[in-house]
């Protein structure tokens, strides 16, 4: 059943396409050597090139190109060995050159595809139209002075990838799933950190609505939405607005809108008539960007494992699709799991990571990048379980101590003497004592009161301070009582 919004005139389909601006992870800017770190003091990461000084010229940063190509490969997209930079001309105070260097006619990456997974477990392919490299602008600060605006050019010239999707999404959920997946792929590739709250990833959301079976109606673009949740809200709010316009006899006009996160509605920013004429033309300061096919293949060969492949591998290792999905959402989690599971039972490893370990993260409000227990130590704990050094119950105790102390499970077992007793002679000696001290209960048991078996197990374990191997305790008790 496809997603629709019920209007006065019946159900409406919605059509969504996203333009995502993703900041490239690189030491230096796209066309200058200035640094790109987030949060630096204003105007401390600005070269004369970034500030548009007379006679300054752009020189392309090879690493930014490599990052765009890696991303293209990760999106199963066509890599264009010949691409070109154009100037997009407009005046603004935080655009020092009066133009942005972008790729208009010949982007570095062509069509690709992203597979999204929806809540019901179904999958859908979303087309990627193109990816191109461009410069970011600086930042205008209007709230620092009553009559003046301040400009911070730290961001000016930082490399962005604009990733344009096909209008293939049909619900807020699909839009959210696409953005989630895209972000996941970029983070796996290490080409964008995906930090939407720092602005290193932002989306322009194109929305239109239509009746079933129709072609596309006029779309509106909701600019600069900066979280996945807001994208989903913006899609729905804008779709509802357009439905109301159509149903009250109006006509949706193509325009650029802004999403008001407080009110959960969109409002007009500028109409098509007010749109800039950007006067794109090839940047004469930059020759066409020509890539060597062998260089691209080298990047392809060095690509990390991507989420889809990793999930499939986990399923093949015996994990449930759900666990595989959860463990691959963040590449740091998957990397953690890989260390825990290496050479061990993958299913038990998954249970521990998604169970006790995730619970601990939640409880302690810690992040996977700052885990309370290292993957190596968690793996060592599983080894102690596997070789019967620890019972399941003891293992949980040790795990809690590991969280508190950060010590390795081996050291904890050693220190606290928590080692499980598997020496049958020792267990038998304890059992003998328990039975001797409870001769009456033994008689009752032997006369048919089977329920008393649990009592003997409890007594034995207590006498052993919980360290007796439960299976052995059971087995030996049965033998002695039998």
């Amino acid at each position: 059943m496809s997603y629709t919004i019920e209007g006065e005139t019946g159900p409406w389909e919605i059509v969504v396409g996203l333009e995502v601006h993703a900041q490239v992870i690189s030491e230096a800017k796209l066309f200058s050597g200035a640094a790109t770190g987030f949060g630096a003091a204003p105007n401390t990461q600005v070269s004369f090139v970034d500030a548009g000084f007379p006679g300054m010229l752009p020189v392309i940063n090879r690493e930014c190109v490599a990052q765009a190509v890696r991303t293209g490969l990760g999106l199963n997209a066509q890599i264009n060995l010949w691409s070109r930079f154009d100037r997009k001309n407009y005046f603004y105070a935080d655009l020092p050159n009066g133009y942005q260097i972008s790729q208009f006619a010949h982007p570095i990456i062509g069509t690709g595809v992203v597979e999204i997974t929806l809540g019901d477990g179904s999958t859908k392919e979303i087309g990627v139209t193109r990816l191109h490299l461009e410069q970011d602008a600086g930042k205008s600060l209007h709230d620092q002075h009553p009559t003046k605006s301040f400009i911070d050019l730290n961001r000016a010239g930082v490399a962005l990838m604009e990733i344009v999707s096909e209008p293939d999404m049909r619900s807020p959920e699909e839009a959210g799933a696409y953005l989630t997946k895209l972000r996941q792929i970029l983070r796996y590739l290490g080409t964008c950190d995906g930090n939407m709250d720092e602005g290193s990833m932002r989306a322009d959301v194109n929305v239109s609505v239509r009746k079933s079976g129709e072609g596309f109606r006029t779309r509106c673009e909701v600019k600069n939405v900066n979280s996945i949740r807001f994208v989903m809200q913006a899609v729905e709010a804008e779709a509802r607005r357009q439905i109301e316009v159509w149903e009250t006899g109006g006509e949706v006009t193509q325009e650029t809108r802004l999403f008001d996160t407080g009110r959960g509605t969109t409002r007009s920013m500028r109409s098509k008539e007010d749109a800039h004429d950007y006067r794109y033309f090839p940047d004469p300061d930059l020759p066409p960007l020509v890539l060597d096919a062998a260089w691209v293949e080298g990047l392809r060969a060095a690509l990390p494992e991507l989420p889809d492949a990793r999930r499939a591998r986990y399923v093949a290792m015996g994990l449930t699709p759900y666990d595989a999905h959860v463990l691959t959402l963040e590449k740091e989690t998957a990397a953690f799991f890989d260390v825990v599971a290496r050479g061990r039972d993958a299913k038990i490893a998954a249970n521990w990571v998604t169970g006790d370990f995730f619970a601990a993260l939640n409880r302690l409000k810690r992040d996977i990048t700052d885990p309370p227990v290292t993957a190596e130590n968690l793996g060592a704990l599983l080894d102690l379980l596997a070789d019967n050094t620890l019972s399941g119950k003891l293992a949980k105790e040790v795990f809690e101590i590991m969280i508190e102390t950060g010590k390795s499970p081996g050291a904890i077992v050693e220190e606290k003497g928590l080692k499980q007793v598997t020496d049958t002679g020792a267990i038998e000696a304890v059992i003998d004592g328990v039975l001797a001290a409870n001769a009456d209960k033994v008689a009752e048991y032997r006369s048919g009161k089977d329920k008393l078996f649990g009592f003997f197990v409890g007594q034995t374990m207590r006498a052993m301070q919980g360290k007796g191997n439960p299976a052995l305790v059971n087995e030996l008790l049965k033998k002695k009582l039998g």
Partner: protein
Amino acid sequence: MRATDFTIAGALTALEEGAISAEELTRAHVAGIEALNPRLNAYVTVTAEQAIEAAQASDARRAKGEAGPLDGIPLAIKDLFCTEGVRTTAASRILHNFVPPYESTVTTQLKRDGAVFLGKANLDEFAMGSSNLTSAYGAVQNPWNRRNDPDTVLVPGGSSGGSAAAVAARLALGATGTDTGGSIRQPAAFCGVAGIKPTYGRCSRFGIVAFASSLDQAGPFARTVEDCAVLLRSMSGFDPKDSTSAEVAVPDFRAACGRSVKGLRIGVPKEYRLDGLAPEITALWEQGLAWLRDAGAEIVEISLPHAQYALPTYYIVAPAEASSNLARYDGVRFGLREDGRDLKDLYEKTRAAGFGAEVKRRIMIGTYVLSAGYYDAYYLKAQKIRALIARDFTEAYQKVDAIVTPATPSAAFAEGENTDDPVTMYLNDIFTVTANLAGLPGLSVPAGLDAQGLPLGLQVLGRSFDEETVFAVGSAIERAAAFTARPRVMA
């Protein structure tokens, strides 16, 4: 011999022999500038003190045996080259207070080789013009005058008018220029000096205020072809800071000046035999070809069928790029700022006050040809013709080794004679723009005088990165012409 009358080659010998010191050489030029610049206005900024200090440092280097290939040679630097700590105006009001905190690559290399900078030479505003009349710092006078009309002030040509006038008037031994459509070759011809625009990509554009990025190219002026060769060698070379600079070796251009032209095939484009071309220009052209024939070269008629579209093509491409390149002069970060009610008002007031009429005209033309709905008809069409013009040359160079044409359609004119109609002014570039559109090297060499006693130049064009043949042919013309005439005004 007067110290200001040296050639660069001669001065280098005299310096090496100790016949003169760099300080003496520089002081002689500074004195000349003090005497004549108030009249000629060839320099926008004179850096006399720094020049003398640099000359003293040069003498010290030479004493230690560490002299560079240009050590102690006093030069004028077109005020389009950014010079660290020295105001750089592009002859525009909008940069009246701009002191770059960096140095252009070309001037860095000249300094590296020991050159002494006397100051910043006047030019047309942002290098847009063919007369030096568009400078915000006043016109430059051509040091030459008509024989029977000595009181009429003539223009030095443009845009590198100050550079050409300074070299002609002995206010520098050489100068840097830039050439976007003829801005070195036309003023060289008007002022009776030599000047070369090398192949696009030969000199780095880093630190040169941009006019039209795909056409701009730096080059030298000097009083001999050999001196141009000496300067160009220092100015050339790959620069990682300019993505359009070429990774090719820099040959010994000076050695090429001595090469024989015997057996070279010299092309004469039939399309350049324009109707209405002044008979004196035609005669000089024929004379130049005769000299080359006498020196053993073969003269071959060639065809450049698309050359007739070069000027309109140029006047679409250059303003289009300029309209974008000049957007950065907005009053926000440097240069002139005229405060406004809001950002748009600040832009409008700053740019209205900061730019002169010719610059505004070209920004408007450029904005127009790039606008939605006009782009295909103008800019895209012009790019296609540009490719055809380049192809014409490629085909011509299958048959010939160099091409010789007049440098300009006339000798220097007076202010007011050519300036009412911008299109007439644009025609000055008719012989020179093709080399910019095709990215090819072109040299202007003084070859004779017109009936009024004004210098006329011939242009030698060559293959891409074959400046050596251009220098050989230019030197042959120079030797045959034995041009010894001097301007009326000189130090």
